[in-house]
């Protein structure tokens, strides 16, 4: 505890808290997306999302950094267990189905639209 009362200690504590906040937000984001994947219809999804939010809100006021760390690790393990095997992704996104499906042609290739005006009669 006394190590955290120095200036450098406080700065590293703030950095740790920031990193933890980011981890919690990303965990919540992934959990929400996967909840929508499991519960595909909207009304049950809103109920499940409210339940998930309530579970996150229970630990809203925890101050101790180590306790927060333990909760995050527990949450991530639970997410790993209950994640959806085939999450929906926007088609053009890197995890989607049409990613790089029709890449743009390189600049050297010139597409000439002649509409069939080639010399068929000379073959």
């Amino acid at each position, binding site marked *: 505890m006394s190590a955290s009362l120095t200036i450098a200690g406080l700065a590293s504590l703030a950095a740790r808290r920031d990193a933890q906040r980011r981890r*919690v*937000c990303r965990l919540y984001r992934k959990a*929400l997306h996967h909840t929508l994947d499991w519960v595909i219809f909207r009304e049950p999804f809103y109920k499940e999302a409210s339940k998930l*939010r309530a579970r996150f809100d229970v630990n809203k006021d925890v101050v101790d950094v180590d306790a927060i760390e333990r909760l995050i690790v527990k949450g991530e393990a639970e997410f790993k267990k209950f994640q959806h095997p085939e999450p929906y*992704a926007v088609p*053009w996104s890197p*995890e989607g189905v049409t990613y790089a499906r029709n890449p743009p042609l390189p600049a050297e290739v010139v597409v000439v639209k002649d509409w069939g005006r080639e010399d068929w009669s000379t073959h």
Partner: protein
Amino acid sequence: WGLLWRRWMSAPAQDGISEKEALDRVMMIVKAHPKVNPAKLTQSSHFMNDLGLDSLDVVEIVMGFEEEFVLYIPDEVADKLVSVPAAVDFVAKHPKAK
């Protein structure tokens, strides 16, 4: 009628959304969040400072943007969408926003 149909089929798809439409839709999504007070919402509201929202509420709003505009928003970009002008800017500039 056949001419109208053919015109629709051959019209080139507009890339992206205009700023005004992006602003309207972004405001609509933020207003739809239960914890947002619509009277306090302006064009330049910051979610956490002006509207008093939690970071998890911001995550929910960003998910609303992803669903409305059919976008894929990676985590690093989503961390930065913390205000209405930032969101409008991102959506209006995105080429794949519907």
